[in-house]
């Protein structure tokens, strides 16, 4: 590849390096993965910052997201319009947060957003039920779902308002040191 790439200007690449946890090579690699999803839509020249958005169906077909039960939520959380259609900026953002080097607080913030299905900045009981069903592929009975949700609320809800705020969520995460390893895309595997 060398230093002579014509996709981004030098300032753009520097700005991307400042705003994500990736090196130049990794940013370019990610750009080509983005482009591979729809070569006819994504131009090879980003110097004039074209406004290109890939629809959710293409994003959801990526190997990292294809089988993930939370893929729709992930795409919605990171996309600008909240519908799952991602620009290159959103794409890089997503991979940066889900990379090895992102700190725990950043990941916790986005994980909270992912589990907050109705986007009201609180995880209420309905959000919990939906999360649980996605986690266990709807195999728990209604009773079990109800009991687990009650127990989770008991354990995590500090201010007793019947829903979990970001602080409550972070409190749970602090006690689980393996969280960092779990919210991770291993994108090196595919190149």
């Amino acid at each position, binding site marked *: 590849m060398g230093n002579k790439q014509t996709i981004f200007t030098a300032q753009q690449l520097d700005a991307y390096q400042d*705003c994500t946890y990736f090196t130049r090579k990794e940013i370019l690699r990610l750009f080509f993965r983005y482009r591979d999803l729809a070569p006819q839509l994504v131009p090879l020249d980003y110097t004039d910052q074209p406004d290109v958005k890939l629809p959710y169906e293409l994003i959801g077909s990526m190997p990292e997201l294809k*089988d*993930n039960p939370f893929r729709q939520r992930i795409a919605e959380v990171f996309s600008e319009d909240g519908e799952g259609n991602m620009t290159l900026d959103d794409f890089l*953002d997503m991979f940066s947060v889900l990379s090895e080097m992102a700190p725990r*607080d950043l990941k916790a913030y986005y994980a909270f957003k992912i589990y907050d299905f109705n986007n009201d900045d609180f995880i209420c009981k309905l959000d919990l039920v939906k999360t649980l069903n996605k986690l266990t592929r709807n195999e728990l009975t209604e009773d079990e779902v109800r*009991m687990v949700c009650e127990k989770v609320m008991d354990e995590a809800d500090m201010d007793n308002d019947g829903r979990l705020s970001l602080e409550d969520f972070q409190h*749970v995460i602090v006690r*689980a040191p393996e969280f960092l390893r779990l919210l991770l895309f291993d994108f090196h595997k595919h190149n």
Partner: protein
Amino acid sequence: MTTQLQRQGSATAVQGTGYMGDQGSPRLQRVPSSRSNHNAPQFNWSPASTAQEDAGQEAAVPPKDLRGLPIPMALKRAISQVQQMQVPVLSSFQSWKRSKAKSLSRGRKSIRGFLNYIKLWRKSLNQIGGNFGDGVQSYFLFLRFLVVLNFLSFMLIAGFVLIPSIVFRSVASDPVNMTGPAECRQYDHNPAALVKFYSYFLDFLSGTGFMEYTYLFYGYYNNTMVAGSDFSYNIPLAYLFTAVFYFAFCLICITAHMGTAVRVAVATGGGATGSYSRIVFTGWDYGCLGDRSTKLKQKNLHYQLQVDLEEDRIKNEAASLTLGQKIFLYSSRIVLSLVAFGLIIAAFFAIYQATIFSQSKIDEIGVLGLIYEYLPSIVITAGNFVVPVLCDQIALLERYNPSITVIVALLRSVFLRMVSLGVLLFTLWSQITCFQGVSGKCKLCHYNYESYPCWETRVGQEMYKLTLFDLLITIAMLVLVEFPRRIVVDSSSSKLAQMVGRQEFVVPANVLGLVYGQTVVWTGALFCPLLPLINTLKFVIVFYCKKITLFSNCRPAAKTFRSTKSKVFFLLVLLFGWSLALVALIYSIAQIHPSMSCGPFRSLSSMWTIIPDSFYGLSQTSQGFLFYIGSQRFSIPLVLFFSVVMCYFIALASVYGTSVNLLKAQLKLEARDKQFLVKQIEALSRTLGVAR
């Protein structure tokens, strides 16, 4: 409501309560954005001059903090552009300091990256953790810790005992004056001249024959005390000090390793509370690829939640038993505990008999002789297989809830393995010293010189055989049991095969095997100085064998181990084994008479006496200094000082615990206050609105 208040003063620096960024992060406010509503932090656009009004605060945000902000990329790029335009006004000293800090942090990061890169087996461990979870990975991490520990111990022993012995053997040394009856000093270690070719292999396996009189065993080392003009080296003293320091070094390593794990466990408030929220929020592995592993992970989570629910149900049931049922339950538990205990005692008796029988048949040759030699190891291993299985069944009958059942069965296994080793040592000791009697065979030399002309070598050989047998059994299990089981299960479609299924990797039993092997090495290191090296090689082979069997033959376990707690548990069991070995060491050094025919301590009445002997060879000032340290005038204030330090740390720990609880309660109170205030504001605005 609250957002309107905040929107008014955008220059006021209100700390955003949602997002905990790193230190020196920009002031955040809660303002709704297009992507998310209330909780999104927003960057404070006010110029750097207001920031400088705060005492000693950094003016502009260093660029790397941008990446940790949870805001959309477009905003981040805008911020970085603004930052580049805002050139802070700093004195030259401050800018020099900042550039030095930057290069220092970059240097530290590269060193950390390099250390991470050269860590032993890092990629394999990541693979294992990703595919099989934390519990299995903790076993392999423990194994790696033991490999490094053994290797460093071997370096220690080689440096202070092995290499000086090799060097001074070539230098002719005058023999120390030998006292004592002539029969005790006889030691025939030369192997027979004409031997069958396979006897070399048998000798390798049992440490006898050509292997007996080598650096491997205690008997080969001489009691050379070299004293040159400016250099003196006392091999017996070095041997003893190295053995003691080896134990101290292992203790320090284990406690240091445990310290980090305990700190994590204390800071996170223990893993027991919050198990449901943990499973729900940190259960999903986003790196999981592929349909099959996703389904597996979902089944895994389902199983975990079901097990936890079942445990709670059992707890509720147990709390609601009638008195008669309770009495029946407790009495049945006592009876079953006695049955388990009886099984363990039976195993000990079998080991005792086997050892006596094996020692009596020491002169057999050929394959039969080999079997007699290995009889104690065979009986111990058989006991370690059979008794835990029976104990598991008994624990099931006792009807504890699942987590306590696991712990009870585990403790019984630990007791069985460690004390069976103790029984073996006790039997050997009774044979060697005739039960500390002064009659019969032990009268002449204070030990049984006829059967054991060099008893330390014999003990070293037993430990060597145990280690080797452990390795052979591991490999044999891999080849003869695990692979065939997988082949049978995969190829046959009968109901029985499907019910049995592929095996699971059972972490606790494997960890106990490692602890047992390490305890054997600790016990035998005094008599077989190269045993740590052999153990390093053995554990490396075990690592690769277990990794192969894990990836080829095992299925991911349905129930996973809680890893923070288990690391502390493994290290505690290891410490228990260490203390057992320490008891054996102290007894051997202080009480038993060393053999008069071999070894570095052959002219002494006990191994310990080398220290007083060489002590009187020191100069007067050193003697006076050491006497002073040992005297009451010095040691009692020292003990008092250390007790004061310990009390201080205990008080500090309890204060931290109380403050953690207080802070948690305060958090709850503040959240309730916030709710109350919001309700007040709403009520007030409603009345104001109505009044208008």
